[in-house]
C-alpha cells in the first residue's frame, strides 16, 4: 500500500493559502498548516487595542482558515530570527520597508526545516505568478525554491501549471492536471473558486500580509532606527509603532499620544518602561516619552500633549509626569498652538 503523502501549507490567513491547501487536500494529501508570527503581521492588534468596536472581537485569520480546512495549525514565533531579514535583506526592500523576497525565502526555509523534523513530504504556498511585484514574479519564484533549500519540494498549487513540475507532481503524489495555472493580480478566479468550495467571509488584506508594506508604519520604523543610531527593535517597539500619534519634537525624543481610551489603556501598560504624561486639570490623552529627556524637554512634551486635551484653549493646564520608577509630580504648562507644531514632528 502506498503511504499517504503529507504536505505543510504556509497559512497566512488570506484566501490564496486557503485555496492552495484545499486543492491539495482534495487530492488525498494530508495537510497541516504553519503560520509565522514576525511581530509585523497584520492581525487584530489595532482592533484589540482600540476601545471602539470591541463588541465584535477580531478573529485570527490563520486559525479561521485552519478551521475551514479541518487541519492542525502551528503558529511559530520567529520574532527574533526575523530581525536579520528586516535589517539586512539580501534582495532589498519593496516600496516600503517590506523585504518580501527575503521574507518568503526565510519562511519557506523554516517550513522546509519543519517538514524534515515532522516527516512531511513537501511544502505548499498560495503564491501566484505575477501577483506581487517582488516575491511572486516568474523570475523570483524559482529563487525562493533555490535559496530556501526547498528546491522542487515547494509546490504552488494555484500557479503550478505556469511553473516547472515539482517533485510531488513528477512522482505522481499530486496530479498536475488538477492544479491551476493562475497568474497576475486579478482576484476573480480565486473568488470564483472560493465560492465553488463554499468559503465565504474569507480575509482579503489590501496591500500585503504585514505592516512593513504600510508607508506610514515604515516611516515610523525608519525614524526609530535613525533615533537609535542603528537598525534595532524589540517586540514592544514595533507594537508601539501601531499605537497612537507619534511626534518627534527633537532628535533625541519622541512622544506617543493615545488617540482614544483603548490606546490610553494599552500605553499605560508601558508606564514602568517610559516616562509618562497624564492630564490632571482637564480630560486629555495619556502619553509616553521615548528618549533621554531633560526638564525642558519634558515641559515641551507636556505642552504638546496638552494640545490634544480638552484644555487646549486654556491659558494653562496641569499635567502629571510619572517616572518609570513610579514617582510622579505635577507641572503646569501652556498648551502648544497648532501653528507651533511643525508638520515634520508628526511621524
Amino acid at each position, binding site marked *: 500500500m502506498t503511504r499517504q503523502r503529507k504536505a505543510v501549507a504556509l497559512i497566512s490567513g488570506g484566501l490564496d493559502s486557503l485555496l492552495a491547501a484545499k486543492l491539495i487536500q482534495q487530492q488525498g494529501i494530508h495537510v497541516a498548516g504553519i503560520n509565522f*508570527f514576525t511581530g509585523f503581521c497584520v*492581525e*487584530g492588534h489595532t482592533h*484589540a487595542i482600540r476601545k471602539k468596536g470591541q463588541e465584535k472581537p477580531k478573529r*485570527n485569520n490563520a*486559525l479561521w482558515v485552519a478551521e475551514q480546512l*479541518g487541519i492542525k495549525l502551528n*503558529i511559530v*514565533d520567529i520574532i527574533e530570527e526575523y530581525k536579520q531579514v528586516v535589517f539586512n535583506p539580501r534582495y532589498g526592500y519593496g516600496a516600503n520597508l517590506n523585504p518580501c523576497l527575503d521574507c518568503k525565502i526565510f519562511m519557506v526555509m523554516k517550513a522546509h526545516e519543519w517538514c524534515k523534523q515532522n516527516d512531511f513530504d513537501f511544502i505548499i504556498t498560495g503564491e501566484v505568478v505575477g501577483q506581487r511585484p517582488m516575491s511572486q514574479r516568474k523570475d523570483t519564484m524559482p529563487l525562493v525554491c533555490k535559496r530556501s533549500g526547498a528546491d522542487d519540494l515547494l509546490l504552488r498549487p494555484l500557479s503550478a501549471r505556469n511553473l516547472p513540475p515539482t517533485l510531488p507532481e513528477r512522482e505522481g503524489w499530486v496530479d498536475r492536471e488538477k492544479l491551476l495555472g493562475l497568474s497576475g493580480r486579478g482576484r476573480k478566479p480565486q473568488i470564483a473558486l472560493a465560492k465553488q468550495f463554499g468559503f465565504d467571509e474569507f480575509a482579503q488584506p489590501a496591500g500585503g500580509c504585514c505592516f512593513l508594506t504600510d508607508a506610514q508604519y515604515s516611516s515610523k520604523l525608519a525614524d526609530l532606527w535613525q533615533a537609535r543610531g542603528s537598525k534595532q527593535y524589540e517586540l514592544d517597539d514595533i507594537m508601539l509603532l501601531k499605537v497612537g500619534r507619534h511626534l518627534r519634537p527633537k532628535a533625541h525624543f519622541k512622544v506617543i499620544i493615545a488617540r482614544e481610551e483603548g490606546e490610553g489603556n494599552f500605553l499605560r501598560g508601558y508606564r514602568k518602561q517610559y516616562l509618562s504624561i497624564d492630564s490632571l486639570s482637564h480630560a486629555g490623552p495619556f502619553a509616553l516619552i521615548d528618549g533621554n529627556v531633560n526638564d525642558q524637554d519634558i515641559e515641551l512634551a507636556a505642552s504638546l500633549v496638552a494640545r490634544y486635551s480638552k484644555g487646549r484653549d486654556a491659558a494653562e493646564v496641569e499635567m502629571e509626569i510619572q517616572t518609570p520608577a513610579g514617582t510622579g509630580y505635577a507641572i503646569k504648562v501652556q498648551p502648544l498652538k497648532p501653528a507651533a507644531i511643525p508638520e515634520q514632528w508628526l511621524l
Partner: protein
Amino acid sequence: MAVVNPVIVDARRLLCPMPVIRVQNSVAELCPGTLVEVLCTDPGALNDIPSWCRINGHRVVETRCLNDEYLVILEVGEE
C-alpha cells in the same frame, strides 16, 4: 485521588497571536487531561484560544471575564 494543580499561562498584555503561541508551547509539554488556565487581556484571545483548541483536539472547559482580564480554562487532549 490526588488533586493536580492546573498549569497557569500568563498571557496578559500580549496581543494576538502571542497568547495562542504561549498556550501552544505550554500544551506541547503537557500530558492529556492536564488543565491549563490562561490569563489574558486581549479580548481576541477569547475567540482564538477556543479556535486553536478545536483544531488541535483540546477541550475548552470554561471562559470567563474578570473585569479587564479574561480567563480560559482548557483540558489538554489526546496526542
